[in-house]
């Protein structure tokens, strides 16, 4: 028997079949995990984002109109959650580095475990990608790793196609240069 398509499974979920959603999660969890992991760098953060993505998707399944595929739709949720996580991290890092934060939160109260894990798990390529600005990083990941079309990337980032190509090309150059530098050390 042919396995159900994503859209058929979505209809099943809407009809109250939770098992169908488990099947959707199994089908896409790995790819969603990797986009989150490449965006945020650490396993723990990626794990949080994967869970949040599928919960958010389940709760807002009523908003899914099917004009894009289910996978592209949850991919967009995952990218947005990753961008939010990065934004929060930038704020935390900024506050942590500030003079006031050093006075209020001594270094012992930081979470060195997660930072260490983040550094250990990153490959040199991932580190180079991690130096890109957040949105450019998202474009790079979608194009380089997931080989998405510019139309799909534009849908995910809610932006126009114009400029994405130049943005990606610029990102490619920067990552290549960073990787070269890292390999020479």
């Amino acid at each position: 028997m042919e396995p159900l398509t994503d859209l058929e499974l979505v209809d099943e979920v809407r009809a109250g079949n939770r098992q169908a959603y488990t099947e959707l999660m199994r089908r896409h969890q790995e790819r969603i995990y990797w986009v989150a992991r490449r965006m945020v760098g650490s396993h723990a953060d990626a794990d949080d984002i994967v869970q949040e993505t599928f919960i958010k998707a389940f709760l807002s399944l009523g908003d899914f109109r099917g004009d894009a595929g289910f996978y592209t739709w949850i991919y967009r949720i995952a990218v947005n959650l990753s961008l939010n996580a990065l934004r929060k991290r930038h704020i935390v890092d900024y506050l942590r580095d500030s003079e006031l934060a050093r006075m209020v939160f001594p270094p012992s109260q930081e979470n060195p475990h997660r930072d260490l894990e983040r550094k250990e798990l990153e490959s040199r390529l991932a580190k180079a990608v991690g130096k890109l600005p957040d949105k450019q990083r998202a474009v790079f990941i979608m194009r380089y790793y997931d080989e998405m079309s510019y139309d799909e990337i534009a849908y995910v980032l809610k932006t126009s196609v114009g400029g994405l190509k130049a943005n990606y090309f610029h990102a490619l150059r920067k990552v290549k240069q960073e990787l070269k530098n890292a390999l020479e050390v």
Partner: protein
Amino acid sequence: MRLRFDKRQPTDEEEETLSRSLRDLAANDPPPQSPEPAYWQNLPIRMNRTLDEATSGKAISLSWAARVAIPGVVAILSFLIGLRYYAPESDGSLKSLREVTLALPPSAVDSLYVASLTTTDTMLAAAVETDILEVSTDDVGEYYLEHAGTSTLVSDLTEQELREVLVALSSHID
């Protein structure tokens, strides 16, 4: 910041060439460590558990509180505070107060005078406008509560409203 003057869109071939050279460069770079197979097996179970919690009654009531109840209470409080402190003064209440006062039966008007601590039932209408100003606003408020109904109830009459009542009363007596 460096300015880039090259606004030409890269061609597909240029992109492909650069992408391939990066892949070649990264070929010897070890891929990031993937989670254990058990992680993938347990992930849907954990997500289902979280989903159960998210869709349970408690979560729904919390989400209902967050989306409906709390904004509702805030809106009502804002309205009441706005009404109390920011509502523009209009003479609508004064008119209705005056109308109600004028519509009161004579016996009720008499009882208002009698109830007052500073007026007497022998007081002349001419004296009303001066002496009756000492009538307690609380007394008048209570009086309206009993005789005028809640639509014109004024628990704390302002000085201006009290004056309006007195003028209306005096014209009633005349």
